């Protein structure tokens, strides 16, 4: 009996095994249950203290749950799967693992990714076999492109004794499906190998550069009774916080000090390394203007006088200022290229500081590579530059800072001209008007989740160091916005979270609204609803100018308004209050109601009616006949 108690307290055996052992030893079931209930608080307390290693015994799924706890997981996101029965059983006595049921694997994975991004904590997404996995793979792709450390699991439905018979929900080599978009994909060969497979998945995902991983095993392994070793994450984490090569740091410092007009590009590694203040410090030391190519986060305070904005055309040459920088320092930007032209024109000296060495030098030639955790890299580079500072350099830096400051102020004034649009008061609204109304409304430290791909944000003055934060995307598997916002709110419950999403993106992934309602996550969702795919509309015309589509107005691919979709009604269907706003005045009133709902812990959705603008939009767009 004492052994049974000890094993239960060390979480080596399950609740069921404990009761079975007690009754076998002659204790009545009622008495055994009473003893069990008295032990639960002590068992939880011991689990909190956490040992580095422990041996657990029970179902394979129970070992899985134990390894998740040891890997630091708090939330598990999943969709229902009968083959995971033993895992759900294990959850009953492990309140430290909180299971979040998501009605669709795609938005569920987006929610998990949002949680990871906003909390910096590990989590896992579970799907039912290959059928659930393929639903989640869109968000797996996003996690791969955006380097999000998200772990995925799904079992193989074929059982070990029956594999290869083309059974129900069976596909051969399931784990290989995800290989091109994961850092690690592995099939555990035995039930007792589940924990080590899981902890490798967490180790690989969370070792920089981050990325998604996948683990799998035959479903009957979940049911097998095994004895396995569980290891805490800290015992497998390589703690890859790398300092840059000192010789390269010296070269970079020399280039920057001698530069006439240096420019800093920031990227997401600055945000994930929490190095915003360090980037500011180096920029100020050199009087160096700062910009950012497209990333997920805003990585530099946009109100800082050295901030010169983002290039409008995804190439540095389209920046109004500075023109022709002679030394460019990239800090943590992946520089994803969507056109054959390099973002950074050849000619300037290029210093590339990133932990992601794999993509370094892919398109743009590098004069000084600084493979590093950017927080450490910025520290070292700032120290090296400080050693070289002379009175003359200080004077040059001050002059550059003054020039950048003047541009910053002028650009800010010019950006506000967007409100001088002669159609500013129109209804349906300009997308810019919706954006400005939300920017006026948002809390000073609001988090903006942005999946309105054709909408450019302005007026928010993002500041990742204590002000408003941005969670954008560039993975571009649509339908991530609502789920991401739910995950961000779960991770940061005290911050206002506003989800901006296009109507096209929204209908790819609204099911996370249900999670907002169920978990009382008061996210405010604003749908820019122009009843169309406006991005593809414009790009098609650019590719086929003056073609038959333009001549006839027969666009097959872009209009969603017939029959129309009522986003507020969709929200109500998921238990979220919503309303339609047609005009700026209605939008302001709706935002006020959304704020009141937030105070009560309720999510809210605003279906903002937005005008279709641009080339060749008819008032009543043509749609293909229903029947020919």
């Amino acid at each position, binding site marked *: 009996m004492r052994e049974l108690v000890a094993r239960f307290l060390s979480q080596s055996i399950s609740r069921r095994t404990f009761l079975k052992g007690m009754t076998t030893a002659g204790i009545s079931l009622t008495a055994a249950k009473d003893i069990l209930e008295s032990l639960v608080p002590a068992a939880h307390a011991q689990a909190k203290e956490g040992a580095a290693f422990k041996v657990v015994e029970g179902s394979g799924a129970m070992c899985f749950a134990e390894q998740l706890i040891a890997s630091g997981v708090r939330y598990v996101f999943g969709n229902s799967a009968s083959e995971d029965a033993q895992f759900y059983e294990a959850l009953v006595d492990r309140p430290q693992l909180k299971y979040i049921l998501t009605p669709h694997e795609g938005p569920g994975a987006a929610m998990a990714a949002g949680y990871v991004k906003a909390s910096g904590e590990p989590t896992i997404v579970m799907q039912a076999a290959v059928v659930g996995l393929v639903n989640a793979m869109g968000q797996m792709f996003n996690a791969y492109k955006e380097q999000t450390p998200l772990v995925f699991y799904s079992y193989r439905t074929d059982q070990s004794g029956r594999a290869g018979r083309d059974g129900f929900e069976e596909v051969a080599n399931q784990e290989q499906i995800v290989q091109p978009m994961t850092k690690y994909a592995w099939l555990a060969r035995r039930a007792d190998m589940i924990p080590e497979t899981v902890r490798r998945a967490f180790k690989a995902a969370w070792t920089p550069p981050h990325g998604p991983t996948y683990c799998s095993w035959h479903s009957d392994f979940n049911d097998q009774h095994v004895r396995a070793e569980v290891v805490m994450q800290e015992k497998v984490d390589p703690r890859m916080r790398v300092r840059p090569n000192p010789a390269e740091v010296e070269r970079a410092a020399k280039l920057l000090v001698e530069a006439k007009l240096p420019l800093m590009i920031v990227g997401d590694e600055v945000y994930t390394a929490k190095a915003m203040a360090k980037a500011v410090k180096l920029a100020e030391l050199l009087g160096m203007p700062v910009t950012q190519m497209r990333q997920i986060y805003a990585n530099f305070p946009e109100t800082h006088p050295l901030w010169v*904005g*983002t*290039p*409008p*055309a995804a*190439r540095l*040459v*389209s920046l*109004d200022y500075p*023109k022709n920088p002679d030394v460019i320092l990239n800090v943590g930007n992946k520089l994803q290229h969507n056109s*054959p*032209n*390099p973002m950074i*024109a*050849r000619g300037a000296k290029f210093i590339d500081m990133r932990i992601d060495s794999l993509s370094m030098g892919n398109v743009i030639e590098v004069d000084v590579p600084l493979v590093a955790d950017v927080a450490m890299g910025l520290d070292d580079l700032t120290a090296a530059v400080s050693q070289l500072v002379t009175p003359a350099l200080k004077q040059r830096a001050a002059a550059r800072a003054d020039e950048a400051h003047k541009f910053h102020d*002028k*650009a800010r004034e*010019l*950006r506000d*001209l*967007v409100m*001088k*649009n*002669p*159609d500013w008061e129109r209804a349906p609204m*300009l*997308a*810019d008007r919706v*954006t400005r109304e939300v920017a006026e409304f948002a809390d000073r430290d609001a988090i903006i989740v942005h999946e309105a791909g054709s909408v*450019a944000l*302005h007026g928010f003055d993002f500041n990742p160091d204590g002000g408003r934060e941005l969670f954008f995307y560039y993975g571009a598997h649509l339908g991530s916005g609502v789920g991401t916002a739910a995950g961000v709110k779960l991770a940061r419950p005290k911050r206002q979270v506003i989800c901006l999403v296009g109507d096209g993106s929204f209908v790819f992934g609204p099911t996370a609204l249900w999670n907002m309602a169920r978990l009382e996550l008061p996210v405010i969702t604003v749908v820019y609803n122009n009843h169309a795919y406006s991005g593809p509309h*414009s790009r098609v*015309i*650019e*590719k086929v*100018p*003056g073609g038959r589509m*333009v001549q006839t107005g027969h666009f097959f691919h872009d209009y969603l308004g017939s029959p129309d979709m009522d986003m507020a009604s969709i929200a109500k269907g998921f238990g979220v209050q919503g309303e339609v706003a047609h005009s700026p005045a209605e939008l302001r009133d709706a935002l006020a109601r959304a704020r009141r709902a937030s105070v009560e812990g309720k999510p809210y959705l605003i279906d903002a009616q937005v005008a279709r*603008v*641009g*080339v*060749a939009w008819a008032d009543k767009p043509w749609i293909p006949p229903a029947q020919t």
Partner: protein
Amino acid sequence: MKLPLAMITALLLSQPALAQRKPAAAVGFPDAPGKDVLLTKCFQCHSPNMWTDQRQDRRSWESTLYRMIGRGALWTPDEIRQMADYLGNVYGRKQ
């Protein structure tokens, strides 16, 4: 080999050093006040394909230009006025 206007412009714009100059292949853009401003400001991001199909009055062009501010263009009110005048004149609504 005869290249269409769009391709010529795209090729020119693909050369970063040339991208800041006025494109030489601005065929289809008749001389009129405001043309120089338009070619300098808009071709940084666009090929002309987007707008050679567009016909709208001056006010609508003005609205279009202000929307570009929202997408990152930094233009003064006077530059917007000149471009709107030009576009309203050359690419105005068809009679």
